[in-house]
């Protein structure tokens, strides 16, 4: 049986892993290559590296970092942040990333998802969605772009369903409202999206306790759970998370 995945997320800024609350107030959490290798050894199922400065400063993506990580990490990892084109995706995949995630560029040009899927296969193409609860419409979420700085008029659930049709193979769904708060995932959001698509969904934003992980899988329907604060600052080890979930009947790779 396919196991549910535990995915530490490494937000990278100026070659350091950082973590903030609601996308601001960044705190240093270590060297990305070292941290990646440590998570790989500790039994993480997968890693996500997000270059959180790339979109804002239009910096080139983090090819060198990907090469270093790939030489030391033998589990799959996704790279995202500021990726604009199929050529950039190709470079990152060739450097050793398993998957690439796009957000702003796919909103600007949805055909990018189709082009990428036809070239790399849809399993390589992750659509990252930064979702913010709509103030006007209850039970709706807005897609935000440029590292969460710009709201759009796109509805998250509709966008997720459209992206699946275009060629996205996975959705990395971050609740901006919950991110970094450690108050639990937004499972209403997770459920709305997992019900609307038939591709895997990674729940992101808000993990604070072991129970939160369980809730995202059971109530939110998430195929994988992503976390940063609670694992970088060593509240819980990967093994603790997996044992807790396994003991509650969730299939895990332990």
């Amino acid at each position: 049986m396919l196991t549910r995945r535990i995915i530490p997320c490494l937000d990278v800024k100026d070659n350091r892993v950082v973590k903030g609350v609601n996308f601001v107030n960044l705190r240093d959490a270590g060297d990305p290559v070292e941290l990646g290798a440590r998570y790989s050894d500790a039994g993480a199922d997968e890693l996500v590296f997000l270059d959180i400065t790339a979109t804002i400063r239009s910096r080139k993506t983090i090819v060198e970092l990907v090469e270093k990580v790939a030489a030391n990490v033998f589990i799959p990892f996704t790279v995202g942040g500021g990726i604009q084109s199929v050529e950039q995706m190709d470079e990152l995949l060739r450097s050793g990333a398993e998957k690439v995630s796009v957000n702003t560029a796919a909103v600007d040009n949805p055909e990018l998802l189709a082009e990428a899927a036809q070239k790399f296969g849809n399993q390589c193409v992750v659509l990252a969605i930064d979702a913010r609860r709509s103030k006007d419409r209850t039970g709706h979420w807005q897609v935000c772009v440029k590292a969460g700085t710009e709201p759009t008029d796109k509805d998250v659930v509709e966008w997720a369903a459209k992206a699946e049709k275009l060629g996205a193979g996975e959705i990395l769904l971050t609740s901006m409202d919950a991110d970094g708060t450690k108050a639990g995932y937004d499972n209403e959001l997770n459920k709305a999206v997992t019900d609307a698509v038939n591709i895997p969904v990674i729940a992101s934003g808000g993990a604070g306790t072991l129970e939160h992980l369980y809730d995202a899988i059971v109530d939110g329907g998430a195929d994988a759970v992503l976390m940063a604060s609670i694992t970088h600052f060593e509240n819980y080890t990967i093994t603790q998370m997996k044992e807790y979930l396994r003991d509650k009947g969730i299939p895990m790779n332990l």
Partner: protein
Amino acid sequence: MIVVIDYNVGNVRSVCNAFRHIGCEATLSRDPKTIEQATGLVLPGVAAFGFAVNALGSLAGLVKEVATDGRPLLGICVGYQMLFETSSEYGRHKGLGLIGGDVVPIPQGRVIPHMGWNLVDLPEDMDLFAGLGNQKHFYFAHSFCAEPKDERTKIAYTDYGVELVASVQKANIYGTQFHPEKSGKAGLKVLQNFYNICKQNN
């Protein structure tokens, strides 16, 4: 020397990294002379089937020659799917035809791609899995799956609500749908086993 075929698709370097990590010599190359001299070949792959076949281009004949000659060949993911006769991913494409069977979509009614770590039942008679016991988790990421129809093919399965083929072997030709280079310790052991198979064959 193992040659990992560099044919302009994603992920080729990861396979070399993994071999290097376990102390095995592996060269990334698309040079026909280097490929001809290989003791074993690895055909990796992160790509759509049609794109991968086109990217392999004229090297396809050479890969078939080396494999027919009896040297070990390991196909990974799309590289594994290419060992079969045809695929229906984004159109109809011909594979290398080294193993009888076709590549078809994973049956509907479940989340697709099949992405993540799944438990594989490891048959005792597949030397690729020597020392790994009866079952291990490996990392999968695919939307299409191969259906071998050649009776001489040894098969390892995984359960995704339907039985999916996780790995095959026909004589010196090996393939894994999963990514051994991304499957942690168990995956590195598979690559070590392949390296040993190449050494013994040489």
